[in-house]
């Protein structure tokens, strides 16, 4: 077998440097990353990258910052496997590899001019943060903005400082709930679906954007359909273990679609008949 260096490869990563790392919960860290030479990642909200630690492996991570922040981007990483645990041990200045961005993100052009109902469960707030911050940076291009957020308990809350700022804005309707709370918690307690009935919305001009753990979709979508939001206007983003990011390796396939190329963002009409999706 001969071996040669080739110029073109889909698998080579761009060199990237960790600028900042922040521990957000016992299990999640936020990394601010910049590509070598200050190159822009040039992503759409909702897209993902393949983050690589040389010698350990690669993982798909959704980009959780808005493309309006040009010189760096954020990744929120939960330590669950070999690579994510290794990522948590990295420090500012350490180099990683970045491939991407990959996939179809949230369809910003279609969302513009409409009302948004953003429903985030658990780690689902990470990809949605890229959309939320984009919308807030371009606030007048959108109609009403509702943000509903749910997580297991107050100590699992991500982006706490930003949640407060969303809450304080007069042009955003923000509510959050936790499944379980300690006595000092003054907010809502209950699963996220309990927040939906209280939202005052015009279904025809509302796009619902839902991201959360697999179990959440079924219940939330049922509520949204009950609110008469058209199926095409319910957007979801799926988590799959992409390996190549290019529709080849087969890992992220959901029946006839590849999550990495056709998704990870889908509208409900596209995938409602796919039992493997949920």
């Amino acid at each position, binding site marked *: 077998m001969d071996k040669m260096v*080739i110029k*073109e490869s889909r698998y080579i990563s761009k060199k990237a440097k960790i600028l900042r790392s922040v521990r957000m919960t016992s299990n999640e860290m936020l990394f601010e990353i910049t590509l070598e030479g200050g190159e822009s990642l040039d992503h759409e909200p909702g897209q993902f990258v393949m983050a690589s630690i040389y010698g350990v492996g690669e993982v798909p991570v959704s980009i959780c910052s808005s493309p309006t922040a040009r010189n760096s981007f954020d990744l929120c990483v939960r330590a669950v496997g070999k690579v994510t645990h290794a990522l948590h041990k990295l420090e500012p200045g350490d180099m990683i590899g970045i491939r991407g961005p990959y996939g179809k993100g949230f369809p910003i052009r279609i969302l513009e001019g409409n009302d948004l109902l953003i429903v985030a469960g658990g780690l689902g707030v990470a990809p949605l943060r890229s959309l939320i911050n984009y919308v807030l940076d371009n606030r007048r291009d959108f109609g009403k903005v509702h943000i509903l957020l749910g997580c297991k308990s107050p100590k699992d809350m991500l982006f706490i400082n930003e949640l407060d700022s969303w809450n304080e804005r007069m042009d955003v309707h923000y509510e959050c709930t936790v499944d379980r709370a300690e006595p000092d918690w003054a907010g809502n307690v209950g699963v996220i679906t309990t927040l939906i009935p209280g939202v005052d919305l015009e279904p025809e001009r509302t796009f619902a954007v839902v991201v959360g753990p697999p179990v959440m979709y079924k219940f939330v979508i049922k509520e949204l359909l009950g609110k008469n939001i058209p199926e095409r206007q319910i957007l979801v983003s799926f988590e799959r273990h992409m390996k190549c990011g290019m529709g080849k390796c087969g890992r992220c*396939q959901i029946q*006839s679609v590849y999550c990495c190329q056709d998704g990870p963002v889908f509208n409900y009409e596209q995938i409602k008949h796919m039992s*493997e999706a949920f």
Partner: protein
Amino acid sequence: MKDVQYLVLRKDNLSSFIAHLSKDQKVMAPVSKGYGNYAFEEVTSAEQVALKYIPTILPPKKFFMPQRETLIEYNLQSGLEVNAVLEHEKMTLFGVHTCDLAGIQCLNMVFSERPKDYNYLLRKRGISIIGLECNEYCDEYASCNIVNSNMPNGGYDLFFTDLGDCFVVHVNTQVGDEMVERTKMFEKPSRTHFDAFMALREAKSKIFKNEIPIEPRDIPELFDRSFDSEVWKELEQKCLSCGNCTNVCPTCYCFDLLDEMNLDLNSGRKFRKWDSCQLEPFAKVAGGENFRKSRAARQRHRYYRKFEYPVAKYSRFFCTGCGRCSRACMADIKLKDTLNALIKERMNKLWIKWL
């Protein structure tokens, strides 16, 4: 283009033809492994080649997408040096049956679809292909007729048809023509050769029959309606999740991407290796959720990746009818049986509707 595209190679010249080819590159051909098994291995003479063979244990995809392939090499010292690499080898495949030619065509479609896979496409350039016609039906596992891969449909440089004491050779490409010119062993066919050739094709059309009671064009619709079929639940009981069916499939191309460090802990590589949707962790995500947890769902996924999903995307079946998956299954999951069971179940449902 020259008008003469058919030539003849006398069988007693085959050995020197192969010897000639193997002077400057490897020649890979089917060889017997015993117990009715064959494999594509390197040969240097015609005696080693099994001219009459049933599909090899692994299809020739192993040359196009190696089981383990280094994609990236890196060195963390000296400010992180990263290189994309291509592992490649110039070779000729001799004796590739039409089912396997179809398999290679499927892989070509997948890896040349954007975003293109350069590693695959560059390696493919170094591989010449000499096809070999099947004069007879392999065995009860083959179903090449229903997917129309029992006859040559391109995908080769030269194509050999065995006429007993000689081969009729179709020259399909410039690369094939160069092999002919270089080896200087081919003759012009006579009328008798053509008659024998046509008689063989005629006889084949009688031997190769579609034994599955469905028209190929109706297969996607059958699958459209069979997602919740009981047939998959039966496979749940049988399947051992050994991955044999996908590893031996000429059109299965799923892979895993992995990192490997050298012992110096400074240099290493990224490589890909064959993976299988039949193995339990394949569709598992970090949180522990497995989107195809049951064996039934995994088997169903395999069948849909042959008969439905690629039809929508590439307008062709990704089953070549080679029968390898059925031959390799210890649990007796047979492709023809599965299709027959789906058809039967569908017919029963239709009857109930009409009654």
